[in-house]
């Protein structure tokens, strides 16, 4: 069971108070009508799903009922940090060729969207 620090409540609470809501920092394409099906599918279905450092959203359902982000290791389950929406993580995975390519795909998706 995780003990998670809510950056809004500023308290460590048990996992059962929270809901997991998936990968963080995914931006909705600004103009869905103008983008290709592939870019839309990439936004809505395709995920990084890394083994290691993962940035993800949690929802404090039985607390302040606000969304926040966490940086968690999906191997060790250690939560490195939690931070408020709009903030950036201070801990990130070491850049590999693969994650660069993934980032490029995201960048391309955003480029297409704007």
């Amino acid at each position, binding site marked *: *069971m*995780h003990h998670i620090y809510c950056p809004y409540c500023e308290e460590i609470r048990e*996992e*059962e108070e929270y*809901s*997991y809501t*998936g*990968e963080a920092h995914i931006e909705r394409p600004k103009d869905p009508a103008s983008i290709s*099906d*592939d870019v839309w*599918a*990439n936004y809505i*279905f*395709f*995920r*990084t*799903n*890394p*083994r290691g450092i*993962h940035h*993800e959203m949690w929802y404090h359902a039985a607390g302040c009922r606000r969304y926040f982000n966490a940086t*968690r290791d*999906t*191997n*060790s*389950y250690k939560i490195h940090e939690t931070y408020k929406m709009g903030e950036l993580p201070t801990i990130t995975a070491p850049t*590999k*060729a*693969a*994650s660069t*390519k*993934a980032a490029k*795909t995201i960048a391309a998706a955003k480029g297409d969207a704007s």
Partner: protein
Amino acid sequence: MKKYSGFSLFKHSLSHHENWQAAWRSPQPKKEYDVIIVGGGGHGLATAYYLAKVHGITNVAVLEKGYLGGGNTARNTTIVRSNYLWDEASKLYDHSLDLWKDLSQDLNYNVMFSQRGVLNLGHTLQDMRDIERRVNANRLNGIDGVVLDTAGVKEIVPIINDSQDIRYPVLGASWQATAGVARHDAVAWGFARGADSFGVDLIQQCEVLDIVTEEGAVVGVKTTQGFIGAKKVACVTAGNSGVMAAMVGLRLPIESRPLQALVSEPIKPILDTVVMSNAVHAYVSQSDKGDLVIGAGADSYNGYGQRGSFNVVEHTLSAICELFPMFSRVRMNRSWGGIVDTCPDACPIISKTSIKGLFFNCGWGTGGFKATPGSGHVFAHTLAHDEAHPLAAPFSLDRFNTGHLIDEHGAAGVAH
């Protein structure tokens, strides 16, 4: 391969069973293969077996980072059924169920397939409407199924709590009599032995570190035992599919999560069928050894740690105790987690990719065991012909772009 038979059992008993032939070789990897299958679980081994048997492609290696059948094949709750809602899924799973029926004879290996029936319980009026819809759909697809009321369930499972005063009373169930369970390890070992007999190299302790591509086509894999060349690489790596895809800069519509199961101490025969409940999130059967085999839910968060949260197990056991009050004092022996590759529509991906020669068979999520022979059979066809088997075609990666999803959350057994 020497055939197993009653006579061979008798013959070897004379030498105290010390001279049995090894079930498969432990070869050194060759420099190049026609096909490399990454992942030596049930699905990977079945793929290798059918590649060799049906399509005559025997220059094949199965690379396994641990030992054969040591991942989710060893960690599931062994349920086999085909009562899925949509045409595409029910045809695929029923194809698998057909193969299960003769699998022991086909492999000359007893996989202990036991068609003891599966109940999917309904606890609300909406559950019962969904069950009727699903059973009707099944029957139109030629899959057996009946809708039972509370008394009907009680007749099959006399020990179930049929009180209408509990939080989730049993209002009825769907019943697939041809469904059942099989011995999970035997399935992996049987396919391994069968594939090996055709000359497939099963290479254990060989982790794939990178997939090597040239000009958009696969040329081989980098492994802990060096580079191995192949024009076709098939990833059958369940929870690690995302990691494999990242090696070539691809992403998949998959998230990997821990799914837990547990077994109790062995008790005398008490439950001769499989009872599943989506709503209260519990499923249970009794193994031939006597232990209750219990499946819990998937954790809500991504993880590769092969262990899950305690609250998930607690939730499942409270549901089991409500359904079967007599189990309340049974002690649990072991619990474990497997990493399941969940897809947004709870259906698998059996597909080519944008990289030539790279194939994926993944996304089976919480219910891949039942599909082991069928999955291997259709995926082998896909690999051999470079074109999807008709039953596998609807499960291409492309469906996430076209929007033709096959939403099986209702029939997938566990919510995820």
